[in-house]
């Protein structure tokens, strides 16, 4: 039954082709052009993934009146002081140089002010207007230009290839590479590498309404967890307040960017009230995403939502021409489903958007496993309990660059490891099993069930009994996934891919639920109706999950403490 696999040997294996993966490839290559670098993407390289979906922009302290310190404090405050302060500091201090690199080396064209300098716009939760952007479609420009740079370098690109498992070294010294599946042909490849970078992006798609691309199911988190890595802050799932509601279409959940609220748009309930007055009268719609999402959610739960179960965002008072000129992409997307963003309200719902949690790393992107780096959304700790808008693509690019620099060194220091052969065989068997099962469950139905369970029981507002119930259901679903079947055809078999997807989805959902159950307070994106207050005395800790153990570690308040004021 075992079809076997071919072997690919390289220096630097990069799993994921978003901002993190591509920045890592470019940096590693330029530091050492002799390195054999392989970039693996689940979709088409440079087109799939979520960096492309970034609309708003990239935060960087460029203006002389701004400062890295201010950006740092905004990030820490927004993160509920749960951030890993070294990582947050790395993010804000590298961001300006990364913006310069994107402009002058990658060729990204950021919007300009009339005087020709780079324009920075207002975004929620920040003390300064520091969000660099290209129109309202920043991500497309960043990823497309990064992708173009690949053509100037000798880097191997594997499209429509997914990583199934990280393969440990035979002698137990970290990670030796990964087992890959080429989705077009159904062939397997064992990729051996001196350094492997996990940059696959997050798992918000375990929720009924979510923003990311359809192929994102937390593959990175699941593989890392199965490989024995330490995952941190998994309960911290950011819900973006304004995901479009588009009937029964999959488009629902796609984000209408924060810049709308930054520019002054209103959020209204079904009665036409600006309900943020009741939740955050000082910042209103420009409060951080966690606050706004929860407020919208509560309005809906208390019966003041629209018949379709959402709230309304209204930018019409800003002027039709202004809206059309500033947010052309959004206007078009709304128009396609029957809304006129320039002249009237658009129905929106909170939507799962970004996973703050992930694999624990240091500021060089190293994990507890030698030979394994993680960067981008797959990594945890940078954003703490809530991410600021504009800090996400910044994280991908900053840490992708750092991972590339690290890899350029580790690839010369670390030897190619022999693989743990039984692990490879086990991964292969697990991947092939659904093809030969008879009459198994429909994996799409299981996916739907996961999404509903998570939305209802581990969603924007949680409580102990509900999460416990969800965990039981998720355990059942994990068993049911093991019985899923797909047509016995390895070439371009979307059903088979869905079985592999939903297996990882359930794993990540279970980790999220477990961590959510553990934290008995409300902080940032994690809200407990049974523990509605933030408790710094007890809960200034990060929750870690590793190999079935759950443990806490206090946040190292190396640069800022919760009672520190924002510097002038």
């Amino acid at each position: 039954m075992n079809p076997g696999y071919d072997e690919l040997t390289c220096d630097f294996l990069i799993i994921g082709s978003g901002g993190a993966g591509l920045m890592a490839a470019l940096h590693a290559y330029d530091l050492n052009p002799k390195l054999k670098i392989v970039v693996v993407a689940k979709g088409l390289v440079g087109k799939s993934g979520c960096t492309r979906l970034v609309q708003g922009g990239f935060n960087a302290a460029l203006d002389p009146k701004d400062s890295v310190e201010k950006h740092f404090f905004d990030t820490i405050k927004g993160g509920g002081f749960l951030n890993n302060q070294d990582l947050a500091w790395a993010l804000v201090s590298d961001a300006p140089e990364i913006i310069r690199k994107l402009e002058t080396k990658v060729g990204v064209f950021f919007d300009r002010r009339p005087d020709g300098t780079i324009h920075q716009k207002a975004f929620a939760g920040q003390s300064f207007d520091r969000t660099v952007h290209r129109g309202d479609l920043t991500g497309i420009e960043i990823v497309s230009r990064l992708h173009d740079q690949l053509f100037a370098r000798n880097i191997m690109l594997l499209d429509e290839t997914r990583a199934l498992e990280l393969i440990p070294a035979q002698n137990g010294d970290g990670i030796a590479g990964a087992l890959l599946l080429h989705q077009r042909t159904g062939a397997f490849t064992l990729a051996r590498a001196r350094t492997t970078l996990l940059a696959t992006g997050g798992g918000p798609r375990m929720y009924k309404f979510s923003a990311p691309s359809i192929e994102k199911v937390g593959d990175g988190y699941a593989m890392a967890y199965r490989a024995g890595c330490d995952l941190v802050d998994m309960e911290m799932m950011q819900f973006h307040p304004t995901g479009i509601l588009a009937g029964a279409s999959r488009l629902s959940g796609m984000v209408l960017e924060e810049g709308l609220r930054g520019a002054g748009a209103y959020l209204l309930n079904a009665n036409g009230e600006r309900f943020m007055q009741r939740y955050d009268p000082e910042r209103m719609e420009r409060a951080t995403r966690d606050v706004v999402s929860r407020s919208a959610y509560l309005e809906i739960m208390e019966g003041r939502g629209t018949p379709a179960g959402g709230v309304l965002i209204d930018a019409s008072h800003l002027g039709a021409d202004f809206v059309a000129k500033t947010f052309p992409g959004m206007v078009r997307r709304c128009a396609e489903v029957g809304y006129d963003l320039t002249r009237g309200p658009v129905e929106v719902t909170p939507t799962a958007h970004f996973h703050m949690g992930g694999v624990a790393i240091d500021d060089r992107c190293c994990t507890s496993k030698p030979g394994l780096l993680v960067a981008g959304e797959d990594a945890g700790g940078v954003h703490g309990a809530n991410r600021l808008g504009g800090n996400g693509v910044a994280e991908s690019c900053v840490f992708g660059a750092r991972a590339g620099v690290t890899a350029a060194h580790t690839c010369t220091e670390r030897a190619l490891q022999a693989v743990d052969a039984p692990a490879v065989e086990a991964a292969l068997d697990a991947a092939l099993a659904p093809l030969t099962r008879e009459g198994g469950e429909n994996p799409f139905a299981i996916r739907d069930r996961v999404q509903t369970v998570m939305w209802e029981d581990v969603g924007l507002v949680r409580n102990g009994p509900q999460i416990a119930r969800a965990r039981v259901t998720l355990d059942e679903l994990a068993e049911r996934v093991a019985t899923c079947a797909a047509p016995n055809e390895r070439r371009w078999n979307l059903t088979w891919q869905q079985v592999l997807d939903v297996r990882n989805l359930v794993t990540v959902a279970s980790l999220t639920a477990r961590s959510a159950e553990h934290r008995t307070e409300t902080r940032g994106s994690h809200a407990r109706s049974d523990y509605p207050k933030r408790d710094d005395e007890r809960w200034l800790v990060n929750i870690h999950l590793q190999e079935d153990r759950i443990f806490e570690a206090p946040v190292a308040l190396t640069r800022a403490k919760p009672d520190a004021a924002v510097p002038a």
Partner: protein
Amino acid sequence: MSLRTTFRILRYDPSTDARPRWATYTIESKPKFSVLDGLFAILETQDGTLGFRYSCRAGMCGSCAMRINGRENLACRVRLENLGSTVTVEPLRSLPIVKDLATDMTPFFEKYRKVDPFFVGDSPSFAEPAPEPLRVDPSRPLRQDANRAIDCISCGACYSACPTVSANPAYLGPAALNRAFALAADERDRDVDRLARVSGPEGAYGCRSVGNCVSVCPAGVAPLAAIQLLRRGKTVGAS
């Protein structure tokens, strides 16, 4: 509302089928369903072997470009309520089929590569620190033309719709030439030889000014305009 839509899909698996064949499915067309939603409904409930490509489902990645009722577009952006009760779906033209509606984008990207589509700055290496970004006047007409050109999401719709691409295997095609223009018009770019590389019969002068590319582009790019600006030498820098 309980409307039903019939999909006629061109199915083809090169490893098992002698030639493409039509397959028909009927689904319940739910509110605001796109063609992509329809394809998923078929995949998830009727035929688990259906092959198509997808990613963002929001018109930004270009992965789901295909011909819908004969016309190139992104499947995620075409709403069933705007089509009739029967929808015909085929893969893009001029590209080899991998499976059903998914085509092999390799020839497309090979041509894209031929125009050296990467920006060349003053300090291209990532091993060096970055210089200060250039001040760029956003109101200059050429900058605005370049801005339109950089909206391209490389979906392949224009490539499929171009009869010159279809007839002439060497012709670089609208997307590649549009990219060449975007860089040639970029005052920050330091590669001055770009025009020369796209001025042969397989380049800008191979375009017959048909304009299908402009008609079908889902991102509002006008490759024909970019090609014309190349032909008239309307770029920055000497060439």
